[in-house]
């Protein structure tokens, strides 16, 4: 996999060197008034799959969006589509592994959007080692870098900002895969377990400051990532369906959701399988 996304700034010094917009929407977000309120949201990992589905659904809800992703073409196409349909989305090309870029890029995004009310970290990769007896440190490292450290790089300044403001909402797309370490993909399990725990810690810090932290644990979804699934996937849903669940949970300011919700019960059972049995299983 190539992670050589174009570097867009040399890191945190001068925002005027930061990424150029290439979406059709230009200038600052439409203004909000008491009678035409707008929310301002940031989606990281927005070009495909669940991130893109969330962007499309949110765009129709008086929300100005900043969309961050590695793939320029897909991001551009998505923004074009949203803006053509009366929404407002700005695109920012960025590789979440370029951690140093985050502070300056975030500042620019908040200025362009005219504020920030919520953020969704949806960037994630799944690179299975290719069998239960195979190991691949390079892949594992990449998954940790994108799924976990990327999230921490973005959510650290955002948590600090929301804590200071006493308001805001953070949504992290984790996975049912983080609930248990399994034979098929130790690196992915670890990255998502780490993300789930990180989000829980943020929640415990921030709830008392008026900030909502939502952990989303999807099961199987019809996205690129489904190819990495081991065995025969079941309860597979479209990302649009998961996006609907997530928006509903955001509105209710929930803490953790599974999508589909049946995964809550499946994972409850899986979490309680004793180790002496679990280590003999082949999934």
């Amino acid at each position, binding site marked *: 996999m190539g992670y050589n996304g174009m570097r867009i700034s040399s890191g945190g010094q*001068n925002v005027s060197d930061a990424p150029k917009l290439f979406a059709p929407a230009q200038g600052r977000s439409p203004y*909000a*008034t*008491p009678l035409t309120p707008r929310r301002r949201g940031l989606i990281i990992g927005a070009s495909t799959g669940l991130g893109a589905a969330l962007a499309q659904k949110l765009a129709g809800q008086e929300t100005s969006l900043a969309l961050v992703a590695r793939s320029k073409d897909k991001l551009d196409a998505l923004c074009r589509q949203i803006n053509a349909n009366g929404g407002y989305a700005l695109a920012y090309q960025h590789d979440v592994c370029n951690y140093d870029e985050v502070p300056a890029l975030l500042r620019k995004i908040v200025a362009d959007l005219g*504020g*920030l009310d919520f953020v969704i970290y949806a960037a994630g990769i799944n690179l299975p080692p290719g069998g239960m007896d195979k190991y691949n440190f390079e892949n594992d490292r990449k998954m940790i870098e994108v799924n976990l450290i990327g999230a921490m790089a973005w959510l650290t300044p955002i948590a600090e900002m929301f804590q*200071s403001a006493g308001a805001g909402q953070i949504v992290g797309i984790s996975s049912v895969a983080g609930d248990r370490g399994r034979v098929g993909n130790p690196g992915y399990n670890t990255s998502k377990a780490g993300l789930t725990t990180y989000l829980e810690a943020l929640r415990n810090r921030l709830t008392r400051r008026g900030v909502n932290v939502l952990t989303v644990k999807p099961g199987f979804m019809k996205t690129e990532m489904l190819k990495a699934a081991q065995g025969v996937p079941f309860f597979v849903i479209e990302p649009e369906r998961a996006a609907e669940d997530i928006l509903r949970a955001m509105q209710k300011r929930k803490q953790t959701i599974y999508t589909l919700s049946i995964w809550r019960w499946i994972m409850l059972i899986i979490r309680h399988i004793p180790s002496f049995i679990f280590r003999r299983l082949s999934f």
Partner: protein
Amino acid sequence: MNLTTRFAQLENFGHSLKATCYRIKIEKTEDLHEVFQLARQSGLTVTARGTGISYNDVSLNGGGIVLDMSGMNQILEWDPASGVVRCEAGVTLEDLWKRVEPDGWWPPVVSGTMKTTLGGCLAANIHGKNNFQVGTIGEHVTEFTALLPTGALVTCSPKKNADLFYAMISGLGMLGIFTTITLKMKRIHSGLISVDAWHVPTLRRHLGDLLEHAPRYDYIVGWLDTLATGNSLGRGQIHAANNLKEGEDPNARETMKLSYQHLPDRLFGVMPKSLLHYFMNPFLNNAGVRLINTAKYAASLRRHTFRESHAEFHFLLDYVPDWERSFGRGGLIQYQSFLPKETAADAWREMIQLSHRRGLPAYLGVTKRHRPDNFLLSHAVDGFSLAMDFKVTDRNRAPLRNLLLEFDRIVLNAGGRFYFAKNSETSPETARAFLGEETIAKFKKLKKRCDPHGLLESDLYRRVFGS
């Protein structure tokens, strides 16, 4: 400077609009230099904010820097002999009157709340209930200093840098940041003010009385029952007041004491007023307001004259703390229109009737008498203003917006104007229509001169003047 830990969610006075900004506390002029430098480096825009009690987005700057000016709150010089006071821009009207009143002076122009800062008062060029007699606050400023984004500290008076003087006052903080302000106070000879109150049964009588009686008074203000219909439409009560002349108050020495100007914090001496807004909330609907207005009007039928303290007369909005919270979760907005005396009655009749037909009546109406002034972004006319408070709910936002857009059309057709401290929905087209292209071009030219890099921007500026 770490901006991340300065992120803040700020609101308008009516709790109907929120914006997330970086809030930086300013304590001295040097801090302003530093912030302008930071803004230039980081590509952010800057807006000043006093106590943040405008009804709209004039002191909000979503995603940018908001200067918290409340730390610049020193009264630098006060001369009780001449009545001239020099203050920092974050001094509030409350700080000011409490300082000058015991010496026999009162601020020449005050808003309905004493919480406003002088910087904010100048930026909006506020008026009081005495607008028809003494004009706006700007007419009582003898001099001010302001820091421009270029780094220049300018001193302006009606004689010196007059173009900046008449543009920065009313300039919504978009040309520079006020640092010190020199004002001339008004002499008073008593801590009391003499008030006449009488009812007016129709809109025509209401405006007719404001016009006819104003010349005999220092202050005049009307309450308008926004729910009354038919022949009673526009009915209300007028309060007109005169300062007491020397010798008219035998207890002047007592009444001038600060303790006498105290607004009571309990109702009937029992209930803490800070709780009152909870009890008002159940009445803040069409039926409840109709009930209250009818009772209020009935109580006003007896003409009476009384004396009350200056603070009680002027600062009605401070009478019930947090009263705006009684409007509930969606908060409130105010729509204030200024109309020439010839067209006001017809236009307001049309607007009030329209609001009734749409089922969206205002819950409070306040009228005042005005005269024009020489400031660049002026809201003044030779006529009247009507301020209407509307409750905002999730369900009424869209229809209320449509109603206000129609109001804008009616007001513009009647030759009216608007006030940038109040209306939150004014469009660039409406602003252009009442200010005129020439005024806007003049303002933008001055903006270019004072702020060549466009560092000063508020949500209001972007909304009304584009960026």
